[in-house]
């Protein structure tokens, strides 16, 4: 294959607001290869969520184009699964029926659907909670359901917008280990937005730092850490050095605006 699975070419996004326009994104170029885990970091307001919603097809770019596997993105679709920060579950559906939502829309017989739902429930550690309603779950469990639900549709790219941003530190670390495990088990491609540099370095095979006002790609760093990572790696000198480097980059961007 010549190029990436997800290609973002010269993408800009301007919002018309009272008294002018906001340049949320300005000429973003980004290529994500199949199987990559790309984390996007950047100061608040640097356009991370905007970028993700453009890739998801929930909004369209003012300029430039986005393709997934060679097909131009024109609207939302199951090839780009989305996991928002919180509160995206169907509250009237049990855990298993949340996970089954996308499969129910496809010509898949119920035995096959059940088999897949079971697999994703097991993968995200939700088997015991399958009959629970979302309101009975903790924040971390809810996010696991959202991840399982998106993965069950076998998306080409999994889009995560600060999926652990609302969780406490311990739960967040559990989720980081889980999402990495899921990524390795399914071989899916991930584009994840986070403001937590440590999380980005731990999870990503690449970390993209966004520059704000207007949003641009400031740097694109390949994470040269072993593929087999556990939480202990967060204390190694290599990890800390990389984290410090990226934190500097993010901070430099932040200072520029504030």
């Amino acid at each position: 294959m010549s190029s990436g699975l997800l290609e973002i070419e010269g993408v800009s996004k301007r919002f018309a607001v009272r008294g002018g326009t906001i340049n949320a994104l300005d000429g973003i170029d980004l290529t994500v290869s199949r199987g990559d885990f790309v984390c996007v970091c950047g100061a608040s307001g640097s356009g991370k969520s905007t970028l993700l919603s453009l890739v998801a097809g929930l909004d369209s770019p003012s300029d430039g184009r986005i393709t997934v596997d060679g097909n131009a993105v024109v609207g939302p679709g199951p090839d780009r699964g989305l996991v928002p920060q919180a509160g995206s579950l169907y509250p009237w559906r049990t855990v298993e029926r949340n996970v089954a939502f996308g499969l129910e829309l496809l010509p898949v017989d119920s035995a096959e659907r059940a088999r897949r739902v079971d697999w994703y429930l097991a993968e995200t550690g939700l088997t015991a909670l399958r009959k629970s309603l979302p309101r009975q779950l903790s924040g971390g469990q809810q996010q696991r359901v959202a991840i399982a639900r998106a993965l069950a549709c076998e998306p080409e790219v999994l889009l995560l917008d600060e999926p652990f941003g609302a969780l406490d530190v311990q739960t967040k670390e559990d989720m980081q280990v889980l999402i990495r495990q899921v990524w390795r088990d399914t071989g899916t491609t991930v584009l994840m937005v986070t403001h937590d540099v440590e999380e980005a370095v731990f999870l990503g095979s690449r970390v993209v730092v966004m520059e704000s006002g207007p949003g641009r790609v400031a740097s694109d760093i390949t994470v040269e850490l072993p593929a087999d990572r556990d939480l202990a790696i967060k204390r190694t000198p290599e990890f800390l050095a990389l984290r410090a480097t990226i934190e500097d980059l993010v901070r430099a961007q932040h200072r520029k605006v504030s």
Partner: protein
Amino acid sequence: MKPAETNRVSADEQAAQRFLEAERAERGGVATAAQSGHNDWAPLPRRSRPKQPSALLTIRKPIPRRTKLTLNILSFAVPLLVWILLSATEAVDPKMLPSPLAALSAGWDLAQSGKLFTDWWATVGRILYGFGLAVVVSVPIGMAMGTFAAGRAFFEPIMSLLRYLPPSALIPLMMIWLGVDEVLKIGVLFIGTVFYNTFMTADVVRSVPPQLVNVSYTLGARRNEVLRKVIVPHSLPGMIDAVRVNMAAAWNLVVVAEVIASTTGLGRGIVQAQRFNSVDEIFAMLFVIGVSGVLIDVALRLLRDRVGRWAA
């Protein structure tokens, strides 16, 4: 940064140095000038602890089941007791206020003659038709208003005007158009409830979180599937609540319409009883109206709780 980590960082002195410098610079960036004067303030006066309020009157605190049940019973028992006292002591002329027993026996006679049931059924039938029609019309329009900007832009202006026309003021016009038959009562009920139910449905539908709609598209749902599998189930409990509220309005309206023009129905029965000064019959029929309304409301509430168990 935690001290344990700082030790490790010494392995990569440069990075750590940069990190710390940045952190320092960062703090400098938001520091405020030192202020003095905080020390010579007198301490703030403290208020004495309030005394513990009775468990019954603590704000937003649930009360024990038994207490609740007792209060529920008292809610009926107290007015009943007042009624019994007023009529037993003949403090009020019995021609004006019948005793509970007199009202009960009048109701029994009405029931025996079959008139009560006939009138009740006439009234209920009108509600089923008139309000039923209003629900059938208002739910799709309300959903269109809550879902599509175009639906809102088209329906909202005219409906918000029509909503302010009081149905009682429309009755004369509707008598000219519809005569004084069943159609009139059904028409009054329809006009009186359809606009409110439309607006309430639209509000409920609009409150479906946009995020839920967006995520459904990324799970492969098409527009009609988003409507059927996301917007409708999310809105259903709220729609039933809207029906509950407007059902109460329907009971009020149908009786008004019957008082004005009808040969049957509980409202008509009340007017007839008034002609013969049968206060006891009026009381019996008012009681039937009240109880019917409550029963319907309870039924709808049970339905709502069943459908909306997820929201509890």
